[in-house]
């Protein structure tokens, strides 16, 4: 069966797996973004705090994903939960780093002006600093998302959801009729998903950037 016929026959399954893939990635990045932006806001401007935070979250990226999934199984069992937790752990570093960088790049004069207008530290953060840092933070979120789309393919090894299942199906059927079709569908599905998300982020940057920065 050619790849075209295969796609015609299996497209519903592939789309379902793709949606599952997208869901774990987006849930994980969403959770990671909340954690990372709060963490980044707390430590930005305090090198004594931000350096260890960046070192520890950065070290997470060094740990091979298959090993991290493995370490999470004793805690969370197989399936969706360890997959989401692993993806959250990987996604925190790029977002925290960019939050810190973005917040520290806000010009001090702007902060002085905000203080002069009587804004307290929380309102300065929410109304002035975070909106100014947002394009940089969003770049971090985009990086984390694209990275997670690839890592999520390995989740299938621990019974997680997503397009990785097709790749492992192909592996299990090596020599069989549809081995190549399954694998190709999984690999191309992941690549297409990454490409689509990348384009969506381009739109999101335009939509959510404060008007004064455009």
């Amino acid at each position, binding site marked *: 069966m050619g790849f075209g016929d295969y796609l015609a026959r299996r497209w519903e399954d592939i789309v379902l797996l793709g949606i599952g893939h997208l869901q774990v990635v987006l849930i994980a990045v969403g959770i990671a973004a909340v954690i990372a932006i709060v963490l980044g806001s707390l430590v930005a401007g305090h090198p004594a705090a931000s350096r260890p935070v*960046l*070192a520890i979250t*950065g*070290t997470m*990226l*060094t*740990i*091979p*994903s*298959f*090993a*991290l999934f*493995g*370490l999470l*199984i*004793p805690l969370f069992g*197989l399936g969706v939960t360890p997959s989401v937790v692993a993806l959250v752990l990987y996604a925190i*570093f*790029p977002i925290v780093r960019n939050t810190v960088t973005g917040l520290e790049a806000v010009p001090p004069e702007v902060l002085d002006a905000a203080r002069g207008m009587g804004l307290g530290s929380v309102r300065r953060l929410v109304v002035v600093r975070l909106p100014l840092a947002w394009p940089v933070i969003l770049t971090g979120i985009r*990086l984390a998302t*694209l*990275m997670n*789309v*690839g*890592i999520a*393919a*390995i989740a299938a*090894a*621990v019974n997680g959801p997503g397009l*990785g299942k097709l*790749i*492992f199906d*192909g*592996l299990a059927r*090596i020599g069989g009729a549809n*081995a*190549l079709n399954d*694998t*190709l569908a*999984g*690999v191309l599905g*992941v*690549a297409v998903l*990454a*490409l689509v998300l990348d384009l969506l982020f381009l739109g999101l940057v335009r939509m959510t950037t404060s008007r004064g920065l455009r």
Partner: protein
Amino acid sequence: MTTPTQPLPRRITPANVLVTPLVLLAALGALFWYLSGLELDDIERRSINADTILTHLWEHVELVAVSSVLVIVIAVPLGVLLTRPALRLVTPPLLGLANIGQAIPSIGILVLLAVTVGIGFDKAVLALVALAMLPVLRNTMIGVSTVDKSLIDAARGMGLTRTTVLLRVELPLAVPVILAGVRIALILNVSSATLATYTNAGGLGTLIATGVTLNRLPVLITGSVLTAVLALTVDWLAGLAEAALRPRGI
């Protein structure tokens, strides 16, 4: 795994030179303590014994070493070549292509090669090389092409030939950026080699996969902890090498 695109910011101080090995030793100690408190069954003993573990560790190191050397030998000269004036036109489309290729997951490349070409050590090395090429290639190109043009002019003005300028000025100045790329490639290779077990090329991933398939937590934990410790050790060594090999004066 996918690529962290930038080298992690780390400085060499006595503290962080020592902290990493101490943490890793503590992790190994904890693993040993955990295992020694267990009654292992037959299946677990088949995986958790010094012989098996060392074999898998060696397979893993071999996969990483061979593919990393190949990546450096191929990607550094290629990267330099692509920055030469004659080839500068093909560089942007090539980088664009490479960036799209980066979206393809490591397990995908490994299995695609396994399905089309076959399984085993050689094919796994091929997949690892393909996966780790990009960071070294990109960093070599960035490192060489961002060397200050006035330095090149000065060297040419002193009467050095283009080749001498490349070898004596451009490459040494690009070394830190190239090394950062090599370090990323090493970490990527340790990570992808974990999955090589699925294409019959062994490695520490074998323990993790066995643990998952046979539902044996001790095997799973042993494999995962050892893999993580190996990755962090390689990263630590690469960091030290990066600091030591940096040309003086930069």
